[in-house]
């Protein structure tokens, strides 16, 4: 169980998912010499450069050519490597869908696609760079696993699992530093196809992923302290395969489910959760996310406001949670 109070104090630590990725890759590469990485003129930003500094012959920078990037990663996997393909989220899932589908997922190759700068929180670069369709796209590919870590520690833990599990993975990271959710619980277990209950509750469930997990924890704190509502918060870092048992448990044990994601509400986490409830335990699933439109630029200090405008702030979550509880439908 997590201390809600620590999340609302100045003692909250922030750390950077990308740096965690860069460090983890070096560690994994030290343990396993079969790990290689392909980058696309963004190795500094993705922190894969560190891996290249440690293993100069195992990082391949192919320049600004993402289709080539992911396909080379496929070739490396054919020849027995565990290959990481990394650049910005904006340039892989959409641009390289064909290559990922045919060259990676169809033959079920051991390629781990790790992208950063996903969601609205990219900020100033604007909508062209705010990838809000990737979960939907990647989730629809047979054989693909989709992971969305919520903080630096979970990045490292999930990378270990992804390396141990044969087959294609898509992992999406955020650009800004994020709150350390698991900082005080470094022994937390992460498994593919499993979600973590961070805070238990009996009235409603919030199922979130990525940066929205911290936001949801804040909302749950407000709901408890200001409204006396007991709210369960789930970190659904494994979007595919999804923890359908946990989704059903939430549907059964609480009055409704709220999903929160930095993603279009079409096809993302909310859809994945609804697919489970619709078939297994019909219940109301209120989807918080980008409501089928594009984002816009915002300076770093404006990102919270940007997210709030798109319904992705603690206050917006609280508002929707209250509405959900009042709703008579189940």
């Amino acid at each position, binding site marked *: 169980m997590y201390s809600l109070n620590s999340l609302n104090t100045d003692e909250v630590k922030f750390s950077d998912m990308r740096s965690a990725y860069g460090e983890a890759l070096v560690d994994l590469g030290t343990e396993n010499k079969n790990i290689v990485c392909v980058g696309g003129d963004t190795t500094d930003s993705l922190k894969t450069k560190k891996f290249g500094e440690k293993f100069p012959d195992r990082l391949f920078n192919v320049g600004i050519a993402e289709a080539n990037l992911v396909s080379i990663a496929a070739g*490396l996997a*054919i020849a027995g*490597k565990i290959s990481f393909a990394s650049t910005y989220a904006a340039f892989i899932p959409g641009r390289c869908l064909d290559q990922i589908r045919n060259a990676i997922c169809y033959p*079920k190759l051991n390629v781990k696609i790790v992208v950063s700068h996903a969601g609205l929180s990219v900020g100033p670069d604007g909508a062209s760079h705010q990838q809000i369709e990737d979960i939907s796209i990647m989730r629809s590919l047979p054989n693909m696993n989709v992971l969305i870590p919520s903080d630096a520690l979970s990045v490292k833990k999930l990378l270990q699992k992804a390396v141990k599990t044969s087959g294609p993975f898509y992992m999406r990271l955020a650009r800004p530093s994020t709150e350390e959710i698991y900082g005080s619980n470094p022994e937390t277990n992460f498994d593919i196809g499993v979600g973590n209950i961070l805070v238990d509750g009996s009235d409603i469930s919030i199922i979130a992923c990525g940066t929205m997990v911290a936001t949801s924890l804040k909302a749950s704190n407000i709901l408890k302290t200001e409204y006396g509502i007991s709210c369960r918060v789930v970190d659904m870092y494994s979007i595919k395969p999804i923890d359908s048992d946990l989704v059903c448990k939430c549907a059964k044990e609480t009055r409704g489910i709220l999903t929160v994601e930095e993603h279009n509400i079409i096809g993302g986490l909310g859809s994945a959760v609804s697919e489970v409830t619709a078939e297994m335990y019909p219940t109301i699933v209120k989807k918080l996310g980008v409501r089928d439109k594009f984002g816009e630029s915002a300076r770093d200090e404006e990102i919270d406001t940007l997210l709030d405008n798109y319904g992705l702030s603690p206050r917006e979550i609280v508002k929707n949670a209250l509405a959900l509880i009042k709703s008579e439908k189940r």
Partner: protein
Amino acid sequence: MYSINRYLRLKEKIKEIRKIALTGIAEAGSGHPGASFSAAEIMGSLYFQIMNIDLKNYSLANRDYFINSKAHSAPGYYATLALSGSFPKDEIKTLRKLHSRLQGHPVRYSEHQKNHSVPGIEYSGGSEGIGLSVSIGISLANRLDGYDNMVYCLLGDGETNEGQVWEASMAASKFRLNNLIAILDRNKIQQDGFTEDIMPIDPVKEKWSSFNWDVVEVDGHRIEQLITELLRKPKDKPKIIIANTVKGNGIKHMANNPQWHGKAPSKKHMPILLEELEGEYMISPSIIAGPTGIDEKSLIEKIETAEKYRSEMIHLDVMDGIFVPNTTFSHKTIKNIRSVTNVPFDTHLMIQSPADELDDFIDAGCDILTIHSEVCKSEKDFETMNTKLISNGVSPGLAINPNTEFPQWAIPFLDQLDVIIIMSVNPGFAGQKFIPEVSSKMTKLIPLLRKSGFTGYFEADGGIDLSTILNAYNAGCRIFVMGNAIFGSDDIQSRLKETRLKIDTNLEQQLLQKSQSLDIKDDWVKGRKTVLERFQLGVLP
């Protein structure tokens, strides 16, 4: 060094690729004959000669890799794999059907796809433009692991419209991948029409050169050219072989015809089409003939002429003055002239003691060495020579003179022989007349030897010219030695053209007759219209 392992057997196997592929496409009712046929020599050369692979042990770490980026050539690819031992060739009849291992486009073979693939397939293709990038990944991994294996990537020319190909092209030269050879099947046709109309890719050589690749150009249906370049590994950069091919090559109404990019022939037409594929022949000009003599300079001139006009082989008549009354040249001459061409040397040993000199003739670079049955002292004697030829990658041949019966002792060797020469003159001199009785000898002997299990070539040698060639062709000969008929002519190019026209017209008539006997003539004539017109057979109803 230039070397083909058993040239004639390779030719036979590549013919088989086309037959199996077409059978599969006709059974499936869909598929791509054009691409399968343009790439048949490329895939055959790779799988049957060049690549270090073991389809029983298909995942060996240091194996050579073949990435078929133009995956719509699947039927030809499957046929090649079947002939390499991947799966039984009869399974081609399941192509593109439900529950088949032979999917419309090939699927990488692995535990999770073993019901939809066959051993040896490395890459799931179908979406164009990806395979070269994948090949780069494999090459990088191989280099990292310190292997000296090669990656061969087959690209379609239409496929290079895809921008990703050029991303890959840049990357391969950046990484100086000298363990990567791409082969561009330059058949000049894509689905909507000719490449230069749809999206021009010329000047193709200059494009790849400017991307810093080692670029060579070959005739993609000449295996000796392909093999020479596939064996020549690049030094410090990737290499691309621009293989000029004819889409649909092998079936005349499909050849160079955009309509046959992705269309299946009717099953009813298959017996005719297989007969057409069986009709393939080779001309082997004998360079001792003609007025210019047999000094090395003249021989070289004649070789160059023969090569220029696309002769399939060069026939070398070696005479020792003992077995035959005349003397021509020795293995030394052959060794001296070998470097002039990579067109296969079809060497006919008219010598009394071939066993004594066999090593020298092998060393001289002969692709085919034919020994006279008359000089074989015993079955054992022949066996020793035959084994030596095979173990040195030379196609073994056996020749019989006009008055010699095919020796009984040779019957057990039929499955090891690649060619049988049925002499139609008594050897010893150029310029003799075809002995008419040999026609009936051929007509009797050839089916008999086929029945006994001989699958190689019959070669006609002696007095073959425009007036006699069809006798030999219709009896079943598919290699024609022509001496004075070619080099005695004032216009060698026209003479060769006339010769080919004669054989082609004859075959066309036979196919037409076959369609009549199968009661599908109208249908056949409809699909074959332009070809029939070309041979002036279009007037038939």
